[in-house]
């Protein structure tokens, strides 16, 4: 019993780590900009494509295969630097103050553009770049076999979670970010260049999505349609955790991944809907998500 459950649990946590990165980026950008970026999932799949292509190139060029690890990080940074400021300063900035419907339409249009752009650049056949996973191998503890790459994913997600807390709590930029999240207008009046903070937060969100995609590549094939699936899942996770709640997203990612793995194992026909059943149940009881707080009404 235990020997079957533990690998399932590790599997779920590794999946949770990937979803967490995407939901984290979504929720971070939302809490600062108050814009729900529907194209967020595309940045995840672009991160995956860039990382897979880069990894495959490293191998085909005969370079040291261990270089595929920094390549994952570099790919995410490249995608963030390329798309973050570009999208925020043009399309997203244009939607500020224009209402949610416009924001969703505009970012949905962006999603469609980015999806086709990926087909144009990377083609429609799947890419497989599992070198990092193969290099790390497996470990056997107490008769149970673990994929070391999965353990690494879990560790990196934990580092990202605590690192962000430290960043927000102890750096100037992090503190200013928190002020902008709490009160935009006061931020301006106190001398904070909120536009710069918006660009930064959006780019950080893109980086997290792309990093999720890049780190997922060794565990799966990269194919068209990945962005849409991930987007819906990340949105469910962000909603369960409470929009804007980083710890909430982490907990929700674990819950969703666990439910999913258990569904695959026990009731495979529910695999695809399991995350949304969880979302439905959580939002019925707590409409603002697990960690979300209803807006305070000022009198």
């Amino acid at each position, binding site marked *: 019993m235990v020997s079957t459950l533990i690998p399932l649990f590790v599997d779920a946590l590794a999946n949770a780590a990937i979803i967490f990165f995407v939901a984290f980026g979504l929720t971070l950008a939302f809490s600062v900009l108050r814009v729900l970026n529907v194209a967020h999932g595309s940045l995840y799949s672009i991160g995956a494509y860039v990382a897979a292509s880069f990894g495959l190139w490293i191998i085909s060029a005969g370079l040291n295969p261990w270089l595929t690890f920094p390549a994952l990080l570099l790919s995410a940074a490249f995608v963030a630097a390329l798309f973050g400021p570009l999208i925020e300063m043009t399309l997203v900035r244009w939607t500020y103050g224009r209402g949610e419907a416009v924001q969703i339409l505009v970012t949905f249009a962006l999603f469609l553009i980015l999806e086709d752009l990926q087909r144009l650049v990377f083609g429609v056949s799947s890419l497989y770049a599992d070198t990092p996973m193969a290099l790390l191998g497996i470990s056997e503890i107490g008769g149970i076999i673990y994929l070391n790459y999965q353990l690494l994913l879990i560790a990196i997600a934990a580092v990202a979670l605590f690192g962000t807390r430290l960043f927000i709590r102890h750096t100037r930029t992090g503190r200013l970010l928190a002020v902008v999240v709490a009160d935009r207008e*006061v931020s*301006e009046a106190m*001398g904070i260049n909120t536009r710069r903070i918006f660009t930064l937060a959006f780019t950080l969100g893109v980086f997290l999505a792309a990093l999720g995609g890049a780190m997922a590549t060794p565990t799966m094939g990269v194919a068209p349609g990945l962005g849409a699936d991930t987007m819906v899942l990340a949105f469910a996770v962000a909603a369960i955790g409470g929009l804007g709640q980083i710890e909430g997203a982490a907990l929700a990612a674990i819950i969703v991944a666990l439910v999913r793995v258990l569904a695959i194992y026990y009731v495979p026909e529910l695999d695809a809907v399991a995350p949304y059943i969880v979302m439905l149940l959580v939002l019925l009881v707590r409409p603002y998500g697990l960690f979300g707080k209803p807006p305070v009404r000022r009198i």
Partner: protein
Amino acid sequence: MLSVKNLKVEIAGIEVLRNVSFTLEAGKATVLIGRNGAGKTTTLRAIMGLLPSKGGSVQIDGSELMTQPAYARAGLGIGYAPEDRRLISDFSVEENILVPALALKMPMAERRRKLDEIFTLLPQLTTLRSRPGGGVSGGQGKIVALGRALMVAEKVLLLDEPFQGLAPALALEYARTLATLHDKKRDIAILVTESSPNLLKAIAEQTLHIERGALHDVVV
């Protein structure tokens, strides 16, 4: 020091400020009096660049503010305390006061000097320093918002209805604090909005009356 000329603001197509003009002088306190909805808050928000204006100009020492982004005000020495305090609830009182210093990258020594000065001017804050911004009373919050505005108010201090919602004793205390401040900081221009002139009679060197978005010389 700060001059407002023909300031016009429209909200949803309706004129809420009509050609408002006045000047604030260094070392002088001005009171802007008007009923609810007369345009007091709108005047301050327009000066701060938090509302788009339809025309007119606001200059500080001859340089135009209307063409600059809102966040530039703090760096130019304009401190602002909004009517509803607007403290960051999970920052401590001291951290709240330090937000402008952080935004403007004030050097450590200057930060400490200003903080000391603020705590001397507003001794009520000393015991509240480490309390979270969300955990102070309305009256205390007004003092914190004043302290935060003082962090940058080298030239101009804008206070929006600081007495609104204060119990009479607290309002009196706030008025006394303001009088001390006015005495000690002779180089800054102070603008306070209020619905009744009584509490500020003692310090007001200039009184402006606003009604339906326009300034009047005489009380109607």
